[in-house]
């Protein structure tokens, strides 16, 4: 093979060695991956503008001039403001009773702290705007919109030397964002962790590549190995977006129970269910998901009621570190995460396996 198959146009654009993007909420993982020759994106949607500014400075101190990204969630719809007590009162008694039955069956203690209901101030356009302004002020190298269109901010970002990436679950979203001038499109498939869309990675990636022209497309959803990386490049992607892969890395600040769950996980260890948030979400199987999948279970409520209902359970599971109760968003590629390695080693192992895969395909062992 004369050309390095891993040196893609995304590598050229970013001046990096390997087309591997790590999405993480842990700054140490970001610095380790970036310093290993990959690219990393810090999820900051739940943080205040002050924390985001401090994190950008911290990462810069660790990686110097190497590029990295900051991810936010941009709402594309604005729901009405709501009173929490009114929302709680809207949960039907039948569903409260079912949640109480689960609590009794699994001897789930009360949460140690008052349930915070996972509030983050209720993400809205005001909060998103303040978070975005910090990224512009700090001139983070890359802004990634993990949800919602970044089109309105592309010009302002480019004027400041900031590249803009957009993550999409539908081809028409990609088309719109490319037209608006985003630098990179991340096409995410159903295999991904969390609130993912219904289209499979193997379908959405080549479909987006077909309309992307010169804009690099990054494949996302279920990608955890060098074979996945090689396959994504064969689909026309210029790199891979990986999240679950880093949860069990040495640098990750995930709970050790979650790390051990990930090492033991396989492709059937997750469910795609509305029982946690009211929206389809890929999450690890646990007592909560098992009970809600019973044929006699009530139908999960819509949003936000189901999330409010599951909040007690989630907080109690985490407060008491109950392995049988805890849940985490894992992608379907979880089975390939088999040991707790430094992030740097994960990058190198992925690269080595991808290169070996290409050599197998071409019969070239040079």
């Amino acid at each position, binding site marked *: 093979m004369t050309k390095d198959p891993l040196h893609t146009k995304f590598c050229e654009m970013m001046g990096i060695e390997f087309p591997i993007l790590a999405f993480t909420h842990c700054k140490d993982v970001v610095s380790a991956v970036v310093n290993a020759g990959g690219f990393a994106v810090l999820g900051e949607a739940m943080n205040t503008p002050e924390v985001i500014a401090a994190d950008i400075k911290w990462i810069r101190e660790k990686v110097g001039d190497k590029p990295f990204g900051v991810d936010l969630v941009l709402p*594309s*719809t604005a729901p009405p403001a709501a009173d929490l007590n009114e929302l709680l009162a809207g949960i039907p008694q039948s569903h409260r009773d079912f949640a109480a039955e689960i609590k009794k069956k699994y001897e789930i203690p009360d949460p140690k702290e008052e349930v915070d209901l996972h509030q983050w101030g209720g993400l809205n356009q005001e909060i998103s705007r303040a978070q975005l302004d910090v990224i512009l002020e700090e001139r983070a190298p890359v802004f990634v919109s993990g949800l919602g269109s970044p089109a309105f901010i592309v010009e302002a970002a480019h004027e400041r030397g900031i590249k803009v990436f957009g993550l999409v679950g539908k081809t028409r979203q990609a088309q719109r964002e490319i037209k608006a001038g985003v630098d990179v499109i991340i096409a995410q498939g159903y295999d991904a962790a969390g609130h993912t869309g219904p289209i499979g990675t193997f379908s959405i990636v080549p479909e987006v590549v077909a309309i992307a022209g010169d804009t690099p497309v990054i494949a996302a959803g279920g990608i955890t190995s060098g074979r996945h990386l090689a396959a994504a490049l064969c689909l026309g992607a210029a790199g891979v977006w990986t999240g679950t892969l880093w949860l069990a890395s040495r640098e990750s600040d995930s709970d050790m129970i979650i790390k051990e769950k990930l090492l033991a996980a396989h492709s059937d260890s997750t469910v795609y269910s509305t029982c946690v948030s009211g929206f389809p979400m890929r999450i690890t199987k646990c007592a909560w998901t098992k009970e809600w999948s019973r044929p006699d279970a009530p139908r999960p409520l819509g949003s936000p009621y189901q999330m409010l209902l599951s909040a007690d359970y989630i907080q109690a599971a985490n407060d008491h570190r109950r392995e049988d109760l805890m849940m985490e968003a894992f992608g379907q590629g979880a089975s390939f995460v088999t040991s707790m390695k430094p992030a740097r080693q994960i990058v190198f192992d992925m690269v080595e396996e991808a290169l070996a895969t290409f050599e197998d395909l071409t019969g070239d062992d040079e």
Partner: protein
Amino acid sequence: MAEQRWINAVRGFDPEMAGKQAECDGGGPVVGTRLASRQEFSGVLSGEYMDHGDPPWRWYLMVDLQRKPAGYEQDSVWCESNSIFLV
């Protein structure tokens, strides 16, 4: 009407958008939680808009909702302009 906090927003009316059938892709917050999820709406644009901040982030009001997430009880929603697809 779906009321929201719109600080420093400029209201307006775009007659060219009024009455158009549209879909809105993307997502938003799960109210009262720290999660966000993909959410899809379809309905009719009223023509009302809000421009928020600088550069302006434009939102249109969608009414007469024909498709909305389970649990969404209102009959209107503000939609970000770049996430709207006219159908």
